[in-house]
């Protein structure tokens, strides 16, 4: 182990502690960046249709195993960024909310049925739904300087929801865990169906 590698954890901690007083400064000066980040972070978290679909991506990835377990959470934010780009640039996309709800239904069913399609099919399906989720985030982006922090917030929140799904999906190594994950898939499909029928 090199000297610089040995001291890295200490330096990181020092950087964290050293920068911490900035929190107080941020409160003293205003909440713009903070509220932008928080607004973006909570945006995917506060919509059950978003939460269900994001967790489903992670859960399905866990069911599919490598390389899908890491490929789906890589593909989703990239295509989501493309969808958000469409929204930011002012283009229209039909049936956005229906597409988001449908993502919950389809991905939930995939988990419930333990579906294991070819990797390219799984990636295409997840990528397709990511466009709708990204468009919704992009279209609702604040127009002020908060937008930068908002973007960071919603991308991280989306990724963390995937991680939560993957973590929960790790239960599939046990029979009871598999049943729990499949049941969660059923719940996700149910949530998606509720949102879908509220729309249609």
């Amino acid at each position, binding site marked *: 182990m090199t000297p610089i590698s040995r001291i890295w954890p200490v330096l990181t901690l020092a950087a964290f502690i050293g920068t911490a007083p900035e929190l107080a400064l941020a409160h003293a000066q205003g909440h713009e960046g903070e509220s932008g980040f928080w607004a973006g972070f909570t945006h995917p978290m506060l919509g059950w249709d978003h939460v269900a679909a994001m967790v489903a991506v992670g859960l399905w990835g866990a069911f599919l195993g490598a390389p899908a377990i890491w490929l789906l959470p890589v593909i989703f934010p990239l295509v989501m960024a493309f969808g958000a*780009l469409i929204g930011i640039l002012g283009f229209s996309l039909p049936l956005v909310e229906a597409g988001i709800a449908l993502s919950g239904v389809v991905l939930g069913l995939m988990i419930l049925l333990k579906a294991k399609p070819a990797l390219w099919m799984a990636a295409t399906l997840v990528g397709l739904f990511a466009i709708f989720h990204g468009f919704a985030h992009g279209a609702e982006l604040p127009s002020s300087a908060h937008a930068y922090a908002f973007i960071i917030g919603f991308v991280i929140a989306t990724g963390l929801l*995937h991680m939560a799904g993957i973590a929960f999906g790790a239960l599939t190594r046990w029979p009871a865990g598999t049943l729990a994950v499949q049941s969660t898939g059923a719940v996700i499909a149910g949530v998606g169906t509720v949102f879908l029928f509220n729309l249609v």
Partner: protein
Amino acid sequence: MTTLCLVALSSPALAHAPSPGLQGFWRGFLHPLTDPMQYPVLIAFALAIGPLGLAAVRRSLLAFGLSTVLGFAAGIAIGTTAFPTGTTTALLSIAAILSLAAILRAPLPPTLCALTGILAGGLAGFANVPEQGEMAAFVVTSLGSLVAVNIVAMLTTTGIDYLGEEYDWPWLANAWRVLAAWTLAIAVLTLAITLR
């Protein structure tokens, strides 16, 4: 960890006016840490170089450090206000390219590692030139910014290298790819709202 620290601790970007003494150094130090345009390139640099091993890390960090000074000098000579959008566009474009390299786990040869450090460091130095002011205040504020970008680059890059060399976690390489995907998404979207 460092990434999350930077994001969580972000405050409204401080006006980059030079201040004298320790406060000036601190204001300069915080500037790259509070500028959302600089996160993606610093993180993407670490994600592209960190997993390549210690030799690549050393080479890239050396190039990065020297280039921050050169980029900073260029910023003073040219004047950063002449290209406000251009600097941001370049920072985010480089961030997107480096993120993509990290996702693809591109085995960058030594020359490209050095070039990566030169580009990322040069742009980071260019983007951290404070506004004009009293010479002493300008110097300490600038010093703070340059120290900060180099510390962030060093901690994140060596951190990734350290974790890869010390721990045999099979999921770690894929975790960096996922993080690179987030960084790429952030860079592309930030670029979009900058250019719209």
